[in-house]
């Protein structure tokens, strides 16, 4: 699955004013519920929080990829955001996070989700792409940069 199938301009949020992991995940959950009214913000939030409790999805270098299954979800939903300032995410390298890709997936097809997750992680492992995304100033700019980065990669 390519990034442009996962992402949408409305769920690309530049410079989210995050103050904590909890607040950020709540904002993401509410943004998704706004775009997809069939999903309830509380359920999304609780699923994301429950997954984080088992182990942080902060993968280092200021990047986090929070993900979980979502009951009733028919196709994967992605949210890309940058935060200002960076926030503590309990990441492996203890660095605060300012670049996030949240991924919500249907309850089946295990391997497919793992592949998607690996693709996203691979994208963020490129320091040039990370820097480019961090420099975006608007939602549209962030979206365009993300889509072009995958096309180039």
């Amino acid at each position, binding site marked *: 699955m390519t990034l442009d199938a996962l992402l949408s301009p409305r769920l690309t949020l530049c410079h989210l004013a995050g*103050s*904590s*992991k*909890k*607040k950020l995940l*709540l904002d993401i959950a509410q943004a998704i519920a706004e775009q997809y009214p069939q999903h309830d913000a*509380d359920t999304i*939030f*609780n699923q994301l*929080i429950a*997954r984080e*409790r*088992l*182990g*942080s*999805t902060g*993968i280092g270098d200021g990047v986090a*990829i929070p*993900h*979980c*299954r979502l009951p009733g979800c028919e196709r994967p939903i992605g949210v890309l955001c940058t935060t200002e300032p960076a926030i503590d995410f*309990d990441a492996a390298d203890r660095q605060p996070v300012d670049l996030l890709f949240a991924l919500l*997936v249907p309850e089946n097809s*295990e391997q497919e*989700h*793992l592949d998607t*997750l*690996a693709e996203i*992680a691979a994208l963020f492992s490129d320091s040039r792409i990370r820097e480019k995304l961090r420099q975006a100033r608007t939602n549209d700019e962030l979206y365009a940069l993300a889509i072009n980065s995958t096309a180039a990669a």
Partner: protein
Amino acid sequence: MKIIILGAGQVGGSLAESLASERNDIVLVDSDEKTLRELRDRLDIGVVIGHAAHPNILLEAGIEDADILVAVTNNDETNMVACQIAHSLFRVPTKIARVRAGAYLQHPQLFDTQSIPIDVLISPEHLVSEYVARLIEHPGALQVLDFADGRVQLVAVRAVKGGPLVGRQLRYLREHMPKVDTRVAAIYRRNTPIIPQGDTVIEAGDEVFFIAARANIRAVMSELRRLEHGYKRVTIAGGGNIGLRLAHKLENRYAVKIIEQSHERCVFLSEELSHTIVLNGSASDQDLLLEENIEDTDVFLAVTNDDEANIMSSLLAKRLGARKVMTLINNRAYVDLVQGGEIDIAISPQQNTIGSLLTHVRRGDMVNVHSLRRGAAEAIEVIAHGDKRTSKVVGRKIEDIDLPEGASIGAIVRETEQGSEVLIAHDDVVVETNDHVIVFLVDRRQTRHVEQLFQVGFSFF
């Protein structure tokens, strides 16, 4: 993690102290400025003065960013309302509250997301009475802690000359009791922990912590000291909340007497209890104790809400011939003073409560956290998730798990189709996903390391 604690009393204060040292962001809220100032000077925490349930005060404490709210003011209603507000206005993921009044606790359906959204209810009275009941079930034990709903227990016992294992190497236990499986998790010799090896020799006076299936506890204890007769007669001093709960729990299996000062309360107790003998009087009245044949009492439990009264009546009962005395003591300084002297066991409600709070504050899927030896050591039950790829524990033999120095796995409880199975941790046991793993930590500072060990890897869904 950001944790807001409401109420800077005994429990709130000790919890803040215990958590502040674990890389957490703690804010303590109370209306009493003096207490807060004292705690802030001593600990690395934030404080907010004000009414603990008011939204503006909660905002000031940073509730929007809080992962956990712990409401332990001395007012049930404040605690409940604070949780409601934390949920409705701020979506705090984990809300823990102390609720004491039985009138509320009788209706568990009150406490769910649809009504009063409390994720974890803490009732110190309940915790203390469960704890005391377990001690009475295992005469001679200094501490008995439950894991996996009581299928596995961790027991602390003092080794006494005459026990078959005393003066021998630990590995002798296996030879001597081939059918009983147990694991010695730690030994404290003159208050210093020793990490047990097969060739460790048990000495008289050692405080031994061992883990075994509940059915085997008695057999293992008999290796460390001569077995005591089971208790038969129990006298409870104080007919308050805890006294009443205990009498309820014990009256069908033991001959129970309860001594209570208030006549009115005595009338109530006699209505509530069916087999217990209710005595109206003072537990420090020597004549009353003698008249009631205190010398035949197996266990004297002092559980009034007055530390000094509990200590004095316990000393008196012991002097007059009660076999064992157990004393409820709130003041932590007193616990150290009296434990191990005339008083056999000092029971600290805080230590019990703190453990049960820590369970929900820790990272990972914790089922139980027991704080031991005044908070220096810890025993935890954690569920292993993931598979060989995403977990550092699952799919591995116990000997290959990278535990920090001073931490050891004692047992595993596994759900199988035939029911749950208790596996005592030997080197070649392989951990499976969803296993309940019981870990003993001699040094609580290793907790963070153990938490990390059980965290799932990034690609876990």
